[in-house]
């Protein structure tokens, strides 16, 4: 698909619609540039105008990008972006909701929310900015930092073991798992589009491996460029849970990227809500004074 760089004749969105006058403040060579570019491309290619989407940002370097693009946006607290985004989505199923969070927010501070987000299969997309450290607070180790790496506040390396993040994610029976590399904008765009489209089926988890040129001196841009390969070129079957888990988890030789696993047969959280069955409106549309006489009659 050719992405529209200028306004379209039919009134569809174009890249300039997502342009914000604020200038980017990320470090030279930061992976956030690639993710920022790709999400705008993905939204345009999905034919979504800025006013049609809700983009939720956690706190961290990526969150500083919340005012560098258009769209309804939210930039909240550290570690809490998933529940806020989930609540928003359940209130209005017609709006695509994308949440962004770093590895610190998602695997330490707010790890419980990630667990229950996947378990609940909320109809939303979560994009992990995975630079394997706390960048904004000047380079402390996260639970995804490789063990033994000297970091700010842990000059001798962290004593804790690194969380095997993909093995952990797969243990939660996810319905969508993808991994991508911030240097591959074309792949990122495709993965983001698939992850946003998966919202009708449930929670889409996208692990984006990104460089942090200032503080991550182990999984560098060059390292990722060298090790990442696209699973679609090797005929990977995204319905194969066991194989997906295996290639996602084992990163010793190569790092599998692309859409790794998708299950479209599990109902999403909203679809499972018995009281909402058969209701065509959204909770946002339903705010009105309600007659509670029927409920009162039962209490006489």
């Amino acid at each position, binding site marked *: 698909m050719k992405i529209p760089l200028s306004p379209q004749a039919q009134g569809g969105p174009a890249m300039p619609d997502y342009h*914000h006058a*604020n200038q980017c403040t990320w470090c030279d060579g930061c992976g956030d540039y690639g993710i920022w570019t790709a999400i705008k491309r993905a939204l345009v290619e999905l034919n979504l105008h*800025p*006013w*049609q*989407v*809700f983009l*939720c940002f956690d706190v961290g370097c990526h969150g*500083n990008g*919340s*005012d560098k693009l*258009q*769209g*309804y*946006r*939210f*930039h*909240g*607290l550290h570690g*809490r972006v998933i*529940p*806020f*985004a*989930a*609540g*928003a*989505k*359940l*209130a*209005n199923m*017609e*709006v695509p909701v994308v949440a962004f969070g770093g590895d610190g927010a998602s695997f330490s501070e707010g790890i*419980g*929310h990630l*667990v*229950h987000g996947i378990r609940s299969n909320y109809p939303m997309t979560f994009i992990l900015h995975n630079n394997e450290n706390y960048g904004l607070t000047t380079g402390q180790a996260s639970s995804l930092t490789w063990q033994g790496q000297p970091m700010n506040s842990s000059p001798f390396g962290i004593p804790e073991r690194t969380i095997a993040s993909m093995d952990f994610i797969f243990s939660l029976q996810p319905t969508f798992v993808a991994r991508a590399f911030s240097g591959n904008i074309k792949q990122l765009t495709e993965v983001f589009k698939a992850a946003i489209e998966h919202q009708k089926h449930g929670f889409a988890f996208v692990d984006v491996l990104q460089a942090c040129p200032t503080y991550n001196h182990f999984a560098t841009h060059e390292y990722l460029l060298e090790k990442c390969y696209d699973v679609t070129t090797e005929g990977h079957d995204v319905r194969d849970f066991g194989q997906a888990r295996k290639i996602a988890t084992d990163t010793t030789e190569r790092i599998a990227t692309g859409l790794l696993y998708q299950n479209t047969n599990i109902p999403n959280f*909203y679809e499972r*809500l*018995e*009281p*909402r069955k058969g*209701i065509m409106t*959204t*909770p*946002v549309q*339903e*705010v*009105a*004074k*309600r*007659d*509670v*006489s*029927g*409920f*009162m009659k039962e*209490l*006489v």
Partner: protein
Amino acid sequence: MSRISIKAVGSSGQGINSIGEVIAKGLKRSGYSVFGYREYPSLIKGGHAIYQIDVDSIPVRSAETKVDILITLNHHGFEHNLYDLKPGGIIIHDVDYWEFSKEDQRFIEKNKINIAYIPLDAMLKKLKARPILANVLLTSFVWDMLNQDIELLKALVREQYQHKGEDVVKKNLECVDEGCIYNDPKLGRVTVSLPNPNAKWNDHLLVTGSVAMGLGALHAGLRVYVGYPMTPSSPLLSYISSVQKDAGLVIKQAEDEITAAQMSSGAFHMGTRAMTATSGGGYDLMTETMSMNGMIENPMVCVLAQRPGPATGNPTWTAQGDLMLAINSSHGEFPRLVMSVSDPEDCFSLMPEAFNLAEEYQLPVIVLTDKHIAEALCTVEMFDQKKAEIRRGKLITDPKDLKKLKSTDRYDPSAKDGITPRWLPGSHAETFNAQADEHNGDGSIDESAEMAKLQMEKRMRKIETIKKNLPDTELYGAKNPDVLIVGWGSTKMTVMDVLEGLEVGKFRGLKIGYLHYTYLWPLKTELFERLAAKAKKVILVECNYQGQLGMLIKQQCGFDIQEKILKYDGRPFFYDELRELILQNLQTSKPLNLQTSS
């Protein structure tokens, strides 16, 4: 006052609540105002639990410490509650092995206590009924003792059990017959006379404060409820969950209170009406979100159901110790609104206001309640559904108006009243960033000194706007009181009963008034100051140690209330207890602190 009090005691799980609730409902339908009060330990089974109902033909909104009838399901009632009986009172029991101590014997004889034995096991055996039906036997025995219509009880039992099938109903009705005709052979038929009934109570509701709040929230257009179980907020979660299907709600039992606060905030930001409820410890976890909503100017409704702290404290008991928490929680300075329910009427009527104010001022609204009103069963008129209106403030939804909006309108710091237009994700308009970092008009991060000052002032200007528009404090009793009682929350119910008993607010020529605070932050003190300046005595009544409302009043207007009736033992004020404390206070001039009472 001619109230009658009946107390059922037993282990948690033995069914005393069902005895209490059936008698309460039956008596209400017979024409009485009923007040049900529960005490129970934080256990599923065992411990010593109490369900007390206070009955009168005039309104009852409090429990007495002394009772006319004590039903005990085990010997613990003899140990713990014998001295709760009024002279001439009756104990009903099936404990055939119990021997009273000499001291107890003296009390029984001196006070002419009647002891009615009911052989529940033998009766159940005879009827081939399951042990749980002992509750029906006891209920019926008491029902007959109160001289009430057996058919009314049967209709109620039928209603209660018809979903379990005709066999179950039949067995229950047999137990009703058996219980009603039974008399302790040694004692003969004893009766307790109730005041004359008043038919106006027949069609009243019998609800707990939690149910009334749930109804109020539904009436206000609640669509999304996110909660995490914590006593005493759980009954609200339970009630709303129980009607979720009919109401078509989105209900989420979250993984923790942080999630509950964030999810409900996300749903509110998107444009629906959402709420959460919790108690002290859970509220502590929600406070960061409270601050966030203050910053992004997002409406939020959070019910804070108080119980005694600190820490896990006394989980199933009551307190009013979280007023300062509600007002001062969360980092940074931001406007918020704190209100408190006090009786079933305002449990219902304040919920629509909570949602309206949250949307009008775009800030967190904290609705205080406590275990006492949350679980007390009250007789109340069908709630008035004409009064409430849905007000959504500066919410823009009209397509033409949306087109005119600029991104920078969202947090335009020049707004005179501090309130700027709000519009919803998905609206065809310019977009903005709901920004929890300090920001400029469209929600872009802005750390400049100039913008930090402008935005802080914009947000805080809302406090003055609210103060101008909030309803005043409410004065009950005498218009120009000599004695001014000041309070908030569920203590109002007991205070009002006491005032009623003191001959419509008069005592030995003294005019007594009660000034009630529904809206606690921002705090209005004008009426208080006017009344306090003229009153001979001002008395603060609160269920906390520090007299927190008193502290607030002093902070806001400098008036230091000297006379304090404070209670912090987990129990609410009881009718006779508070009456006595107020009368004592009127006769002395010294401050009075109460340690324990029940």
